[in-house]
Every structure is written in structure tokens, then in C-alpha cells.
């Protein structure tokens, strides 16, 4: 395991925590799982394909477990969460990294694409958060971290389906933060750097650094830890300032 930034070295800020990572077989999800484990947590890695998650788990070590889940299926989600809690000997939080993204222009978007996008991105998030939160509420503590997208704040042209679902996820996160606070549960979101396919409007003067998964990992570890004990309802942008760049990037000449 590599040391990533200042967060995961020295003090293991997630020692003793048991955390579920959905979408854990993906590029970001598996990096998150690795990072949480490096910070001292036990991790359950869940995704569509059990063998993929088990591969990731095996590469991390005995503190990791691989599980299969279909996040659009209520029973599958509830079962996955229960199994994760059982196998880890507890459950203290969720990092939700699953998403479906198929850009299509508005007038050309068919209903099936719309429904699948909403189903995976919004309903899937709802189901995972609800199942985990039910568990967390019983013990009066826990943290949810949702990976979302800047397109949820300002839509991406030619990708209104994904953008709308991302906006829904952010709003859902606010509601969860508000409703679950009395139960001792915090909820926050992370906006990563856009992937290659979405780099349409990159202003010149934002931080141009490689290493996208590490930035998400560091943010997730921070938000899950006690260092973020008063942070809830926050959308944390780790995208070099891109989403904050607005429309004025240089003085008019």
C-alpha cells in the first residue's frame, strides 16, 4: 500500500471502524477501499460482480471482504448491508461510489436510458443510504460519504440525465444530513475532478494535478474521521477548483 498525502500516514484516523464501499470494484471505489484500510478500517467492498470485489479484497488483505450487490434491488441492498455488518463485526459508515453515466443529448434521450440512470444513480443511492442509516441509527453514530459530480451543481451539456441524477443525490444528501443528525449520523458528498470524457470546460487557471483517486480517498478519510465531527451536509470539492471557476476566468482584454 502506498502512502497517500499526509492523511494516511502516521495516525490511523479510522482505526477500528467498519466501512462499506459500494461500487468498490471500480477505479475510485477500489482506491477508496484501499485508502480506508490503510487508515486502519475494516472494509466490505460491494459491487455487481462478486469475483471482482473479492479480487480487490484479496489485494488489500484480511481486513477486507468482497460482496456482490445490485444497488437497484432493494432486497439485494438490504442483504448486502446486513452481510457486511456481520462479516466485519460492525458497521460505522458507507462510501458510495456507484454510478451509471451515458451522455445523450436531450431530444435523443430514450426513456430506458433515463430510467436506468435515475435507477442506478439516485434510487441506488437512496437504497444504500437507507439500509446503512437504519443500522447506524440503532447505534447512534456513523458517517455516509457519497461520491457525486460537479454536474449535479451545474449541468453538463449533452448529459442532462446524469446531471439531474447527480443533483438529486446532492439534495438527498442534505435531507439525510438534516434528518439523521439527531441519530448521530453525518452525511457528506465528494465532488471529484471530472473524468477525461467530461473535461469540456476546463478553465486554464485551475490546479492541474494528476492522481484523482488519491484526492477522493483523502477527502473520504477526512470526512469519515472524528476530525470532521461537526461537518455534515457538505459537498467537498476535490477538483482543483474547476467547479468553482464560474464563467469569468480571465479579465476582458
Amino acid at each position, binding site marked *: 500500500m502506498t502512502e497517500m498525502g499526509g*492523511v494516511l500516514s*502516521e495516525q490511523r484516523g479510522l482505526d477500528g471502524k467498519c466501512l462499506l464501499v459500494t461500487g468498490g470494484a471500480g477505479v475510485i471505489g477500489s482506491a477508496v477501499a484501499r485508502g480506508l484500510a490503510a487508515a486502519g478500517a475494516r472494509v466490505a467492498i460491494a459491487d455487481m460482480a462478486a469475483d471482482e470485489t473479492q479480487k480487490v479484497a484479496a489485494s488489500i488483505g484480511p481486513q477486507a471482504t468482497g460482496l456482490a450487490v445490485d444497488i437497484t434491488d432493494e432486497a439485494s441492498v438490504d442483504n448486502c448491508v446486513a452481510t457486511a455488518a456481520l462479516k466485519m463485526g460492525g458497521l460505522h459508515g458507507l462510501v458510495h461510489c456507484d454510478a451509471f453515466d451515458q451522455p445523450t443529448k436531450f431530444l435523443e434521450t430514450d426513456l430506458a436510458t433515463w430510467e436506468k440512470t435515475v435507477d442506478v444513480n439516485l434510487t441506488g443511492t437512496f437504497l444504500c443510504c437507507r439500509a446503512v442509516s437504519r443500522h447506524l441509527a440503532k447505534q447512534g453514530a456513523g458517517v455516509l460519504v457519497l461520491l457525486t459530480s460537479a454536474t449535479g451543481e451545474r449541468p453538463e451539456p449533452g448529459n442532462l440525465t446524469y446531471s439531474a441524477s447527480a443533483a438529486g443525490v446532492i439534495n438527498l444528501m442534505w435531507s439525510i*444530513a*438534516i434528518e439523521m443528525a439527531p441519530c448521530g449520523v453525518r452525511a457528506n458528498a465528494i465532488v471529484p475532478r471530472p473524468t477525461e470524457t467530461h473535461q469540456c470546460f476546463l478553465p*486554464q*487557471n485551475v*490546479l492541474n494535478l494528476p492522481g484523482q483517486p488519491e484526492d477522493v480517498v483523502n477527502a473520504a478519510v477526512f470526512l469519515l474521521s472524528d476530525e*470532521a465531527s*461537526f461537518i455534515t451536509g457538505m459537498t467537498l470539492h476535490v477538483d482543483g477548483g474547476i467547479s468553482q471557476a464560474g464563467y469569468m476566468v480571465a479579465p476582458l482584454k
Partner: protein
Amino acid sequence: MFNLTGKRVVITGGGGGMGTIIARRFHASGAVVIVADLNENAARNVAAEWGAPDDGFMVDVTSEASVVAFFRRAADRLGGLDAIVHCPGITVGKPFVDQTLEDWRRVIAINLRGTFLCCREAARIMCSAGGGSIVTIASSAAHRASVNICSYSASKAAVANLTRGIALELAQFGVRANAISPGPTDTEFVTRNHSAARRAEFNAHVPMGRYGRPEEMAAAAAFLCSDAARSITAEVLHVDGGLVPAGLLK
């Protein structure tokens, strides 16, 4: 949790309140800290906690001459500058129609002009040195309508916007700038001055049902100045128990 070993940091407004807690946290995390405050004795006393009273300085953040001179001395003493956490801020609690021009000017001078001057001087050092981290303190009041603190709210909204502008302009020099927006926070001043009724009202609006602790703001500042936050800039980090997404401030 955040390794700030060797980072050279200025904490303005470090002589009391949130600034002192932040200075202590940065020192504990391994940073070399200069504590600056309008009250020189207070600044020196904080730095004396770790045996370095000469790392406490006086600065009047409303005075360009004072700020320029201070940063020159600070950079000299530290051999450079890696981060600044700028904490000074005041409020005036009066209905809008009763706020005087003097009230307005004072709040804007300390909260906004002070932020501008200190960030500018810090940035001038950091840009020519290849990078750094600027952290300002805005407020939950910057983001929602509030009552009886119009000059404070406006100044803090301006601080948040200014911080974003700084971030975008200085990204090319490797300098990051972020604001922290606390909700009601239990500094000594607040603990002394907020009545039970006022506390109850705030608690009713904060989803987490309590005030923040200054240590929680310090943790956020330490995170933002650490390498773990290297891709975070132009951000407003809300450390408010969910207050901003939760609705209207009273």
C-alpha cells in the same frame, strides 16, 4: 491526523478565540507557527506555550503599513511561508435600520479589508516561492439570510467570494485558497455572550443540535493546509453541524 511537519505558518488573530485554538493545533501537528494579533502580549503568550514567545507578533489587520511590515518580519523569521490561517473578525448585533456607518465601517475594515491585506501579503510571498495554502474564515451567515447582523453577514459573504477569486488567480502559482464557514462556535467570547435563549434558538436550527467547538474549526484548517487537500481550492468548507443546508438562520 494531519502531518504539518516543517510547514511555516502564520496565524493572524491568534491571540484569542478560534485563532489561539488553531495556532495550538498547528503547532501540535508539527508546524512552525507565528502567532499574530492586535494584542501583542496575547500573541506572545500563546507562542510562549511552546517556549517561543518571540514568535508572537503584533499586527493591525486594518492597517496596510502594519500588515506589510508584519509579513516582511514573519517571512524573515520563518525563512518563507507555507500557509496562513486568517482569523480576525468582529460582529455588531443591531437591526439593519439601527446600524451606524461607524458600525458598518468597523466590521468591513476588520473582516474584509483585514482579509484582503493579509491574504495579499501572504500571497506575494507564496507565489514567488512556488506555492502555499491560504485559509480564511467566512461564516454560515455568509450563505443564508440572517437578522440583526447585516454588516457581519455581508462582510463574510465578501470574504468567501474574495477567497474564491484569490484561489482562481493564484492556482497557476501553486497557491490554494479556501474559506471555512463555521456556524455558531463555542469560543470563549461566544460562550460568555450568547444567552440561553439565543443558544436554544441556534440549537433548534442546527441539525446536530449544538454549537461547534473551535477544535473542530482547527481540524478543518489543518486538513486544508495539509497535503491531503492538495486538490482543494476555491472551496468553502462548511463546519456547521448542517446549518447551511438546513434552512433559514434566525
